[in-house]
Every structure is written in structure tokens, then in C-alpha cells.
């Protein structure tokens, strides 16, 4: 923290004599002499960089917010805080570069080479946060972790590897590192954890660029643009052409074979992939008309190309439980599916993409070029980050997860007041984690 210090520098005397021929000079408009006496304070220097911050809000009783005093108050007079309805600062040891929210738990990771680079908080009944040794017994793990606790990864070179990205599903989580592949933790009853994937165990050296967790399945994206999937497949969300469980990652085919994918997204039972040339592919659950542009069936078990009219080149996609959103290269957001889509209470389902007017994201006559840069989906809500660092949320306000200060549902994009510029946000079922940086 920078302490202000006094710098005595000579200030030139400026004469501000006001001549007003209309009325007499009143006491208020006496000329002010800027004398060189008096200290000049310096609060920041020229090289000050913005401070990174993490904010959390939503339902706190699972410990997913990482603030133990919400669940177990410090003093007996205070009451536990069940819903944190506005962003609350989470103090972290390192700068957090990646965060993910699962169903009642969160993982935050820093891209440092230090020994502790991954922390988890929240529900741990399925060991989705790894083994958190209790104080009393070596062989027991905590069921609820109330504050960010380091997750020990069995790295070969713990001081050389960095964590690139984390993803959380219903009861499992995936950690992507830069040199040692992907680690998975948690519930493996449907094979969603696969096995620990190490490059040299597979035929080709596969470097992963992104991982995504659905409710009970996992998707992996390699640097060459191939998608692998494992886990529960009853809705076809693995995209492997069948509705069975897949216990180790298998490459996904269908319309995706030969296509270079740049981003994958899933959170419920529907999965989406965006190719490098801006096409959208989807598979999995379509009960809520997420994939209705290609099929009337309720499930697709193999990826199909989704022809979207009027969306332009798709840059990002985000998939929730019942709704889907895509972002095009112009910064416009398109939504469809079922639920609160963001165009008022009258639009509760749509099978074709509907654009959300950019005036709702802050476009005005003074700012004609505000564009959305990131779009994320929780189970039943959306979050969008604009290029000016503002966060907009809309959707069902499950236990205060929107962070707008009230528990009502929000039917069109609403600004969340975050002290700082938001860089990225992670959405869960009933809580959210936002990574921000201070203005200056």
C-alpha cells in the first residue's frame, strides 16, 4: 500500500484576479494567492499499476464465497449472513487469474510458479476440492471448506508448472496446467473425471488449451482444436454418438471432425463449441430448444453445426442449464433457449437467436461504441463484461447470485456495482466470483 508522503515542491504563484465589471467583488471571489508554503501530497507515483481484486457474492452457507464469518460469525452477537447480495471483497494471497464456480463450491487459481497456486472453498463432500485434511484426524477430509484453502496438486515439478484454467461441474472439477496436462478431482461415478491425463500416455502429444465441466461430464479442448469428452452421456452431452457413460476422454466427431474449435462451453447438459471461423456447433440436451435450429428431438448425441441467422461471426458461446448465449465479433449478445432470456418477462423461450439491444449495455450518444467482450452463463442466469470493465447480469436470481442488491429476478441486463473494472467473471448456480482490477 502506498503511503502518501509530503513533497515540498515550489509552486508558481498564479494570479487569479477576477475582474467583473457587472457587480462588486464579493468575498467569495477574492483573488487566491497560491503561496509556495504548504505541503504537497503525493498519493501515487507515475508507475502505479492497478491492484487486482476478487469479489464474491451469492449464497454463502455452503462456504462457496470463501468468507468464514458469513457462516460462522466472529462474535456471538452477529448473525450469519446467508445471502451476500452485493459484491464483497475476497482477500487472496496471490493475484487470481482464473476462477470457476461449481454447484456450491468455487476454485480460484493464480498463474504463479509458487507452491500454492490453487485454492478451493465450498462444498467438498465429493472431494471436488481435493483432500482437505482435518485438524483432528489425518484420514478425514472436511465436508465444507469455509475459506480459500490450498488444493495440493500432485505435480511433478510444482515450482515450474503454472495453472492456466480451472473448471467446476456439479461434483467434480478440472485443473489445466501448462506443462502437466489436466488434473481432475471429485465425483467420478459417471466417469466425468476420466483419468489423469498426461500427454505422453496418448498417441499424439496433446496440449490442452481449455477445459469445461458440465453437470456430470467433462470436455477438453486441445491446442489443435480437437474436442474430447468423457462422463455421463444420457442426454448425449458427451457427443460421442451414444447415450452411455464414457469413462475416459474420447475425441468427439460428428460435424466437428476436421473443424478447429477455439472455445467450448457447457454447464448443464448441453454443450457448445465455437470454431475458429466463427461457426457454432452444439450437442446434448435440447429439451429447452437450445438446439432447435437443427432438430426437434430432445437430445443430440453427436455434434451438429447450428446455422444461426443474423449472428455474424461467433466469437464466444456460453451455455447454461436451459439457455444459451453467444457473442459475435461486433460485441453483440444473442440469447435463446428457455428461462429469463434478457428481453423482458414476455420473452421466456425462443428457439432462434434474439439480440439484446446494446443500449442496455451502456451504449449512449456519448459512448456509441460500447461492446461486450465476455459472456458467461450460470445455471439460470447470464453475465456479460463490456470493454469498459462493467459487469451486467440478468436471469433468475437464485439466492442472490446476481449481486444486484435484491433477490428479485432480473429480466433485462442490469449493472452490478463492482468497485473497479471487471476483468472476468465465473458464474455458478447460486453464487458468482468476479476478478477485477482497481481503476488506477
Amino acid at each position, binding site marked *: 500500500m502506498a503511503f502518501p508522503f509530503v513533497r515540498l515542491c515550489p509552486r508558481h504563484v498564479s494570479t487569479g484576479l477576477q475582474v467583473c465589471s*457587472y457587480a462588486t467583488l464579493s468575498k467569495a471571489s477574492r483573488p487566491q494567492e497560491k503561496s509556495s508554503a*504548504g505541503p504537497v501530497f503525493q498519493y501515487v507515483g507515475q508507475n502505479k499499476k492497478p491492484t487486482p481484486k476478487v469479489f464474491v457474492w451469492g449464497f454463502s452457507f455452503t462456504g462457496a464465497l470463501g468468507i468464514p464469518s458469513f457462516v460462522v460469525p466472529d462474535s456471538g452477537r452477529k448473525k450469519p449472513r446467508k445471502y451476500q447480495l452485493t459484491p464483497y471483497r475476497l482477500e487472496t494471497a496471490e493475484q487470481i487469474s482464473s476462477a470457476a464456480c461449481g454447484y456450491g463450491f468455487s476454485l480460484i487459481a493464480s498463474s504463479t510458479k509458487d507452491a500454492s497456486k490453487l485454492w478451493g472453498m465450498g462444498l467438498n463432500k465429493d472431494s471436488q476440492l481435493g483432500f482437505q485434511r482435518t485438524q483432528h484426524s489425518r484420514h478425514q477430509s472436511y465436508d465444507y471448506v469455509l475459506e480459500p484453502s490450498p488444493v495440493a496438486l500432485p505435480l511433478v515439478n510444482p515450482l515450474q508448472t503454472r495453472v492456466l484454467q480451472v473448471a467446476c461441474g456439479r461434483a467434480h472439477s478440472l485443473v489445466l496446467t501448462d506443462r502437466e496436462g489436466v488434473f481432475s478431482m471429485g465425483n467420478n461415478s459417471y466417469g466425468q473425471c476420466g483419468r489423469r491425463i498426461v500427454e505422453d500416455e496418448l498417441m499424439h502429444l496433446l496440449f490442452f488449451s481449455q477445459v469445461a465441466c458440465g453437470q456430470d461430464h467433462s470436455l477438453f479442448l486441445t491446442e489443435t482444436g480437437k474436442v474430447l469428452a468423457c462422463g455421463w452421456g444420457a442426454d448425449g452431452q458427451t457427443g460421442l454418438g451414444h447415450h452411455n457413460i464414457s469413462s475416459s476422454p474420447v475425441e468427439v466427431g460428428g460435424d466437428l471432425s476436421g473443424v478447429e474449435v477455439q472455445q467450448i462451453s457447457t454447464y448443464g447438459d448441453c454443450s457448445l463449441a465455437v470454431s475458429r471461423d466463427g461457426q457454432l456447433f452444439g450437442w446434448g440436451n435440447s429439451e429447452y430448444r437450445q438446439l432447435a435450429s437443427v432438430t426437434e428431438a430432445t437430445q443430440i448425441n453427436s455434434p451438429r453445426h447450428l446455422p444461426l441467422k443474423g449472428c455474424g461471426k461467433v466469437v464466444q458461446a456460453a451455455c447454461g442449464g436451459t439457455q444459451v448465449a453467444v457473442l459475435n465479433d461486433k460485441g453483440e449478445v444473442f440469447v435463446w433457449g428457455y428461462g429469463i432470456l434478457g428481453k*423482458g418477462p414476455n420473452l421466456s423461450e425462443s428457439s432462434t437467436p434474439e439480440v439484446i*439491444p446494446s*443500449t*442496455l449495455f451502456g451504449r*449512449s450518444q456519448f459512448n456509441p461504441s460500447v461492446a461486450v467482450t465476455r459472456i458467461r452463463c450460470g445455471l439460470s442466469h447470464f453475465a456479460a463484461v463490456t470493454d469498459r470493465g462493467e459487469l451486467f447480469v440478468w436471469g433468475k436470481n437464485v439466492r442472490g447470485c446476481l449481486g444486484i442488491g435484491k433477490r428479485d*429476478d432480473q429480466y433485462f441486463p442490469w449493472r452490478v456495482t463492482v468497485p473497479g473494472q471487471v476483468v472476468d467473471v465465473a458464474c455458478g448456480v447460486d453464487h458468482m466470483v468476479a476478478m477485477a482490477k482497481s481503476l488506477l
Partner: protein
Amino acid sequence: MATPAVRMFRRLEGLFCVYKPSGVHWKLVRDSIETNLLKVLNATPSQPLPQEVRFLAQPSTETEAPKGLTLSATSVPVLSKHPLVSGPEFQNIQVGVGHRLDAFSSGVLVLGVGNGNKTLNDLYRTRVTRDYTLEGEFGTATDDFTHTGGVVERSTYEHITQDKLERVLAMLEGANQKALLMYSNVDMRSQEAYEMAVQGLLGPEGKSAPILTGLRCIHFQPPNFILEVQCLNETQKYLRKVVHEIGLELRSTAVCKGIRRTRDGLFTLQDALTRHHWTAADITQAIRQYHSSKKHRKRSQSPAKKPALKTSEDVTATQQNEANEEAATRWFFFVLFIWLDHTFLGDAPHIRPILFI
């Protein structure tokens, strides 16, 4: 029978705007304009005095006149109507002031004469924004936020770049846009709230906290900078406080060197009369221009717009006094507001600034 003075007064009824110089209380401006108008009104040539027939007693010249009173009819002027008896025709005229400007600021000040005061009332009640230019200077903080106040603190400002200033302004604009939504009385869960939010029609009705609907930096040369703001329900002291808060957000200090209102509703700096033109002739011309532009605007509004306006009028329900003129003038101001929206405001809701760490 209207006297020439009354006819001239009728020509003077309406709204016009003047340029109020800084350092002057707004009341002095209003009083001097009223005095100027009164001088001219009372200088009109007075009507010839009416004559009345009175039966006056004639003094008898002859001594042998018969006893008794002889009255003869004479036409005499009515002395009670003489200007020296009754006083000037106009003792005072109703000159009303629109949104006030304090002594430190300068700029457009809207005044209304006679019947124009009713329109002024409506101007007050509808949601019309005002444009200001704020000149600020980094490095000092004073107790009344102006450069003439007592210095509280001095700080460095070399670290401030235009990019950082833009970031702070973006944050303030975001906070204000949110306030615009929060102060509107519409139920956020309704479809019409969404429709209004898309068009940028959400906003406070009547009194509310000051909200800046637009904010941008038009000149930056440390330590000086100039901001352009559009605001609702503001006071000039609040705008100076905004400059002070911008300095605090940038980890420095700032004072406001000047505030100039460049637009109040539809009256801009182009139409403002400067001090040497505060005469009845110029004011009459300004009012004539105002009336003709009002007619032109009413005619140019297409009938298809009327239903949309009607719904927005129902939604933003002001008190419904059912006088026809009132409705017509309110129409005018809603038309004005919608027109303003599309030309000046664009479409975005805005917020009350919140001081961030």
C-alpha cells in the same frame, strides 16, 4: 380597449433565455430585465384622457342673475385616469426564472414573462436535461470546490493521464446510469420497464437526486481539463463536487474553475441574449422566435408519434389538471423531451455516482 402598452405586453409574453455572466446573482439579472421592460412599457405614449360630461356650476357674471344654481354641461377630462394620479400602467410584471444558476456559474438562464410563466412551470416538472461545461484544474482541493475557496490540500497530478481520466469518467457514468434506473418508479419486472430501458426513457419523475446522464472529457491538458456533462435535477454546487470527486478518484485533488450552462432544454447558447441586448426590442424578438419555433415543432411532429407519446404520458403520470392549455403545453414538453432524447441523449440510463476505493 387595449392600450398600446398592453398590446406591447402581449407581444412580450413567452419564454426567452439570457446569458447570465458569472459573479452575478440570478435575481439581479431578473430584476434588471424586469426594470428594462417596465421602462419601455411605461414609456409608450399614453392614451388621451377620456372626457366626461359634468355639470358644473357656472360662476354668475351679472349681478342681476336670478337666484339659484345654473349648471352647464361641460366636457372635462377624467382626472382620476391621469397617469400622474393613477401611476404608471405597469407597476411590475411577472418575470419568472427557470432553472437557477448560482453566482459562480454562467450560461443560459431561461426567463418567462406573463403567460410564459405557466410554461416555465411545466418546464420544471418535465424531465428536461441541461448541458454544462465544467472547467477543472488538478492539484488543489478547496472547501467550496472552486478555485477561489480556501485551500484544504494540495497534491501531485503528474500520474494522471487521459486514459485514467476516461476510466474514472466511465465508472461515474455507469453509476449514474444505474441511478437513472433505480430512481424511476417503474416496476422492473414488467415488460414496459424493458421497453423503456431499451429506448432510454427510464428516469426519475419530479424530484430526485442529481443524475448525470452524459459525461465526457473534451479537453485534457494537465493540470487543466474540461468536461461536458448532461444532467437532471442538478445544482451547480453538486457539479463542482463532481469535479472534486473526480480528483479524489484519480488519487489527487481537483477544483472547479468555471461552470457554464450551454443548454437548458431547447434553449442553447446561440439563443441567449447577452448583457447589452437585455432591452425590450431584443427580448420581443427572442420571444417571437420562440413562438415560431414552437409552432414549427408542433407541426413537424408526425401524427404517428402521438400514440407512442400518449402511452409515455400515461406512464409518467404528472398531475392531470385538465385545462386545455396545460395539456397542450405539456404535450409540447413531452414532444420536446422525446425530441431531445433522440438528438441529445441518445439512449442510455444513468446513475448517481458512488465513491469507489
